[in-house]
């Protein structure tokens, strides 16, 4: 199980029985629209607040994943979920609807892989037959909490990122057909002294690099082992920095393997600055796009490193720098 310092190797090979991705209007116009299970044309989703809309996105993703897995809610023992809202209300409220025993997690935008790693661990250790990992983010609710009101006319710099409106969920089971959760590397918190909340990609890049290095050190694999190595939401700016840092540290990852969910999710002409971000960025791209490609046989081995910035509006106002974390999960088709 424990492989060297910080990696779990799942010998029972838990299966991702099903996964689901739900998105908003901006994602519907994005580059990966066909990989979503459900897309909404309205950011309110017919609700009267952005927070309720986010909760609904998460509920839908979880329900679709359970349905696609051919299970009922009662068959799932544990629900692991996290989001960006204060006190992770989206997760808690979705868990209230689902009625599945719930473990709340918080890793900011790394919550997707934190949840998947823990779900894999629960199933692998026999603590659960089936576990559901989910996460969500909403552009407007995140802007409201972390930045300015959505209609405020402030100018954002080119390093800013666009929070993905969406939710992703993965149902992990003991046996069945589907991609296997093979290993997970839990990241350390890294803070390189960046304090600009409009430059999250730069802040998170070192955390991603640290976890990637730890993963290859612990597993003794070479980067070429994977068909795709995808970081969570570094965006164009952070991706560039992460690639250069990896190079500097002597870990050569071919550019055609190394990619970023925040770059992939939107089209070039969408006004998203450096790229996508938010919990749903890594979640929807992994649970939608990458797992679809894996099921089609286009990729066989995938490493996702979801990156999270552990700041709060309060810590930023008190001039704290941004601590960041990244968790990696390896998924293989057979």
């Amino acid at each position: 199980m424990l492989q060297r310092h910080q990696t779990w190797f799942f010998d029972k090979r838990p299966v991702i029985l099903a996964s689901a991705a739900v998105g908003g209007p901006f994602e519907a116009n994005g580059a990966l629209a066909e990989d979503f299970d459900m897309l909404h044309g309205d950011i309110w989703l017919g609700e009267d607040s952005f927070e309720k809309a986010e909760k609904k996105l998460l509920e839908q993703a979880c329900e679709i994943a359970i349905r696609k897995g051919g299970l009922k809610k009662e068959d799932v023992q544990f629900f692991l979920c996290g989001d960006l809202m204060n006190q992770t209300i989206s997760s808690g409220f979705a868990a209230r609807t689902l009625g599945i025993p719930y473990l709340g997690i918080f890793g900011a935008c790394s919550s997707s892989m934190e949840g998947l790693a823990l779900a894999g661990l629960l199933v692998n250790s026999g603590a659960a037959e089936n576990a559901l990992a989910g996460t969500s983010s909403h552009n407007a609710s995140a802007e409201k909490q972390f930045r300015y009101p959505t209609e405020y006319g402030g100018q954002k710099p080119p390093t800013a990122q666009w929070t993905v409106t969406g939710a992703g969920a993965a149902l992990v089971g003991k046996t069945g057909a589907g991609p296997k959760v093979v290993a997970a590397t839990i990241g350390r918190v890294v803070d390189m002294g960046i304090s600009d909340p409009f430059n999250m990609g730069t802040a998170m890049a070192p955390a991603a690099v640290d976890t990637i290095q730890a993963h290859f050190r612990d597993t003794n694999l070479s980067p070429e082992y994977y068909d795709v190595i995808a970081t969570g939401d570094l965006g164009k700016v952070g991706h560039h920095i992460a690639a250069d840092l990896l190079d500097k540290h002597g870990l050569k990852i071919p550019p055609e393997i190394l990619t970023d969910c925040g770059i992939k999710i939107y089209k070039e002409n969408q006004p998203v600055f450096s790229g996508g971000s938010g919990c749903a960025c890594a979640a929807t791209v992994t649970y939608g796009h990458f797992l679809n490609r894996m099921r089609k046989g286009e990729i066989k081995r995938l490493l996702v490193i979801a990156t999270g910035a552990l700041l709060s509006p309060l810590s930023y106002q008190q001039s704290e720098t941004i601590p960041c974390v990244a968790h990696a999960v390896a998924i293989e088709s057979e």
Partner: protein
Amino acid sequence: MSNKKKKKLTPTQQQFHILAKAREPHRPVFWNCIRAFLVGGTISVIGQAIQLFFMTYFHFDEKTAGNPTVAVLIFLAALATGLGVYDHLGQWAGAGSAVPVTGFANAMASAAIEHRSEGYVLGVGTNMFKLAGPVIVYGVVAAFVVALVVTTIKVLGGI
């Protein structure tokens, strides 16, 4: 980043800052200035036109026309905010749409709209001045200081 902050960083952090800075896309400062000039100027021209309108048709003089002119501009900015236009203008124009009185109206209206979901008292009432409040606070403080200085000079027989 100020030098004071930089001194606190470890050598590794400082190295990273140099590496990151080199890869950061540059803000288009020149174009931002041009856009701010154009939009800020256009808003001012519209303001001027409204002022002339009040002076020509409603018998205001140059001084008294100020208040209704500002009121109209604030109304237009709040309307544009509600229609979801002003934030797009703000991204394009930067200071051009933030500095005139319309920017102040946008700051208040956007906060009020945003927090409507928490109710009229705790939501709208509490949060309306979230962004605009500092302008009022420091505006009043600055006016007070200036008034003190002017009064002192007068008392001393300066003017």
